[in-house]
């Protein structure tokens, strides 16, 4: 408070250990969070399970596609999203809340007492990991649906309007779900709570509301994070969705915008709690 010299740091003590004593910086925290993510074996199993879930679901659903269904080739490939998003949600929730349930938070936030860089790093690390896993899942889904394509299912034709957007959208939507999980985890600080809320927001809520179509329910549906799933649909499927809704029509990217807004709001709330509240 009083005697700390400003300006160039005086060498109060001989430097004994590491030569570089500059302290905490964003790239360093990022690197630490990446180590934390990759050093827990269950995360690797989770990633593998997510890829298998995506490819397995796509494979199985592909077998049920008949020519007259009006499903496109991209629909078959990305159909694993409905199941795989649970894996991404768990991944995010574990990154966000795992700190608190395992007590690692004490170490982490004593090491980086400004706290917010940790959350930012967790967001970036989760996004990177989720994106990578989503790409692998997408590739695996393409391979897994090959038998279906040689049967009744339509070929994966990127010239179909919106097909390439749907494939890219798969990865983007997966990242969004993972980040929602991270935000909910950091906000609620318990993985179980984050999971239940996340599942309700990303799939069940939409499902419940869909059973009671109406102006109010369709409007609410449009503004749930589950709208992010619109990213994995091609133009024809989106048109069909928009034709049946009584609520707002979100268009090609509107669903992604809604999901992104949720991610931002939840993360801001988590950041607020992190700044304001004690860590135990």
């Amino acid at each position, binding site marked *: 408070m009083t005697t*700390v010299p400003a300006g160039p740091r005086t060498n109060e003590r001989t430097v004994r*250990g*590491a030569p570089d004593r500059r302290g905490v910086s964003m790239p360093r925290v990022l*690197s630490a969070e990446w180590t934390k993510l990759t*050093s*827990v074996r269950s995360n690797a199993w989770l990633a593998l399970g997510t890829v298998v879930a995506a490819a397995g679901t796509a494979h199985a659903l592909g077998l049920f596609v008949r020519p007259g269904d009006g499903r496109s080739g991209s629909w078959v490939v990305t159909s694993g999203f409905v199941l795989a998003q649970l894996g991404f949600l768990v991944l995010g929730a574990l990154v966000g809340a*795992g700190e608190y349930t395992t007590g690692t*938070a004490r*170490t982490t936030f004593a*090491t980086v007492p400004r706290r917010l860089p940790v959350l930012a790093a967790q967001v970036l690390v989760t996004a990177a990991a989720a994106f990578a896993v989503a790409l692998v899942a997408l590739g695996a889904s393409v391979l897994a649906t090959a038998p279906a394509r040689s049967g009744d299912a339509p070929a994966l034709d990127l010239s179909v309007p919106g097909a390439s957007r749907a494939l890219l959208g798969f990865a983007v939507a997966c990242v969004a779900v993972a980040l929602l999980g991270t935000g909910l985890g950091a906000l609620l600080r318990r993985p179980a709570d984050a999971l239940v809320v996340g599942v309700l927001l990303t799939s069940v809520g939409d499902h419940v509301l869909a059973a009671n179509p109406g102006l109010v329910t369709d409007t609410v549906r449009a503004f749930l994070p589950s709208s992010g799933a619109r990213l994995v649909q091609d133009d024809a499927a989106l048109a069909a969705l928009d034709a049946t809704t009584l609520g707002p029509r979100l268009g090609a990217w509107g669903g992604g915008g809604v999901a992104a807004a949720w991610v931002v709001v939840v993360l801001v709330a988590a950041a607020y709690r992190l700044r304001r509240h004690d860590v135990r």
Partner: protein
Amino acid sequence: MIEVEALTKRYGSTAAVDGLTFAARPGMVTGFLGPNGAGKSTTMRVVVGLERPTSGTATVDGRRYADLPAPLHAVGVMLDARSVHPGRTAYAHLVAMAKTHGIGRARVREVIAQTGLEPAAHRRAGTFSLGMSQRLGIAGALLGDPATLILDEPVNGLDPDGVLWVRRLVRELADEGRTVLLSSHLMHELALCADRVVIIGRGRLLADASVREIADRSERAGVVRVRTTDPEPLARELLAAGAQVTPQKGGVLHVRAVTVEDVGTAALRCGATVLELGTESGSLEEAYLKLTGDAVEYRAAGGVR
């Protein structure tokens, strides 16, 4: 240098720490002592910024912990041995910590060797015994080669070898000019390695003094103990010389208000055969119990008044 000033931390209506002021200085091991629930861990958590004080301040080297540019180099912290993800290896845990400050892997291996963790470094922390977790916690505290160390009950769960090692380690760290704040609920543990002791009870400061000074507050401090074959004549002789005498079992007398020399000459005068003679050094444990006991009594009495 850790300075805590008028620190208060409340949870709802209960005050875990209540107007606490003390300092831990460089080159010294400062023992932080109090019964369970006295507020030691809360104070330490406030010092390292995990919890916000309700009022008052806690600073390290004159700054709030959160304002330190390189906290790991300034302060090494071990709060709870189980502050590790059970699925992560000890090595990965330390590497992740090290990366936040750009510390290299060589230093991680160094602290692993220093804390005797090599055989377990690549095992998942969830499989560790309490002693192993404790060593991992200490390794994390040493990682940044900090000028200040805050260790919460570091000997908890360690085997006798480990206890000796921790005592020697904190001694060395203090001798190198570092500030060491070490909590315990065992007085005799601190008596062996601390220079100064801060005692708290119910969140309030009870004593802040050197180990010697605390011992002098013991009931038995300044008592001369003499064992003789003839306690009765000696006791009479001593009483006549103005001493206070408390007879004990086995021909032992506890004598107050006179010196060892006075007791010796009194024995010579009355012809008592002296088998043992010496001053009782005050027991820290007793002094501690007296202090904390007083605190409890004070609270109870205050309630009645």
